[in-house]
């Protein structure tokens, strides 16, 4: 299990990582706010000349190596306009280099697929998050797991979640 956490303004990623480790699960914590990760340039190299490899030489190279060896990814970041924070979003879009370039049909629709990934979870952090923003965030994650053809669930929590919430989310992460 790999935690991709934009932890500049939240500590939830760390709390969840510690909780799953406490329960004996092998996990890696990646602090996105300490990484130099640029946006995808849409060059198409990873699905062409350098298949499966991104040609941008930044910290994402090391992150991709860790992600490719994991079957569960957990994104934890502040919610920005119902979306992932830009730091988290840029990392997420760079993971497409690990995707299967072919198309599949799932529930009657065209989908893509990630290589050897079972689940993608998202934990959005925002205090007093309004219902409509929460809906946009949850809907975004639903579309993510649909197109990636993986399992997963999304959660919205405040910056200081109670221990029960952390325990509940950790439980879901472990048993998915």
């Amino acid at each position, binding site marked *: 299990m790999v935690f991709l956490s934009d932890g500049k303004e939240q500590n939830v990623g760390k709390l969840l990582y510690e909780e799953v480790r406490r329960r004996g699960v092998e996990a890696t914590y990646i602090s996105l706010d300490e990484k130099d990760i640029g946006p*995808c340039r849409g060059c198409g190299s990873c699905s062409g000349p350098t298949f499966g490899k991104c040609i941008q030489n930044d910290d994402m190279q090391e992150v991709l190596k860790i992600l490719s060896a994991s079957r569960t990814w957990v994104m934890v970041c502040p919610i920005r*306009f119902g979306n992932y924070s*830009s730091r988290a979003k840029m990392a*997420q879009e760079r993971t497409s280099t690990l995707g299967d370039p072919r198309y599949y049909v799932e529930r009657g629709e*065209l989908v893509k697929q990630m290589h050897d990934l079972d689940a993608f979870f998202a934990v959005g952090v925002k205090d007093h998050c309004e219902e409509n923003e929460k809906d946009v965030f949850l809907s975004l994650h639903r579309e993510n797991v649909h*197109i990636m053809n993986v399992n997963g669930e999304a959660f919205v929590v405040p910056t200081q979640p109670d221990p029960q919430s952390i325990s509940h989310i950790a439980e879901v992460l472990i048993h998915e």
Partner: protein
Amino acid sequence: MNKTTCLQRVLLLSASPRIKGTSVMLLERIRKQVQGELVHLYLEETETILEKMKAAETIVISGPCYINGYPGALQRLLEAAHEKAPWEGQKLYGIINGGMPYVHTHRSGVDSLKLFSSQCGFSWMGGFVLGGGAMLDGGPLEKHLSAKKVVPAFEQFVKCIAEGQPSPDALYEEAQTPPGKVMTHVFAGLLSFMMSRKLKKYAYVLKMRRPHSKK
């Protein structure tokens, strides 16, 4: 449609790393009707773009769909714009286009832009979600699989921008019908075959499976 007189300062912002892709093609279509300045997010400094946004009365953002939303580079710009809030009620329209031929795949992009608009003090005027847009590869909208409906719908969207009117979601929703069951399987097979053939050129051989097979 006749060329509309420019009554407002319009900023056409491309959120695509591609200079001649579908996102820009759509903005160029708008520019033919509504004169405005075309700016490329990936070529300009954040501060320069923010200044241009400040000077504009109407902003149209057009970008590709990267995993169900606009690229992270745009999100970074929006976060920078949020730090300068409140804005002065500039009118904001958003266009997102993606490869999958479904509106729902890409809709999160404009839903998020709408939230950005309300949280920062812009006036949200509506979005246009275009499925199946990536296969145009920057070519004319007339080559879209649903061109018959999509072209007039987009023209209507442009008219809304020109007149400073809100554009309803129904405009793009009703213009696009997802492919049926048979066509979906045909597309999956065809697109997978094309990808495999492309990779073969670079000496990568994918083990082909039936496109609709489960993992």
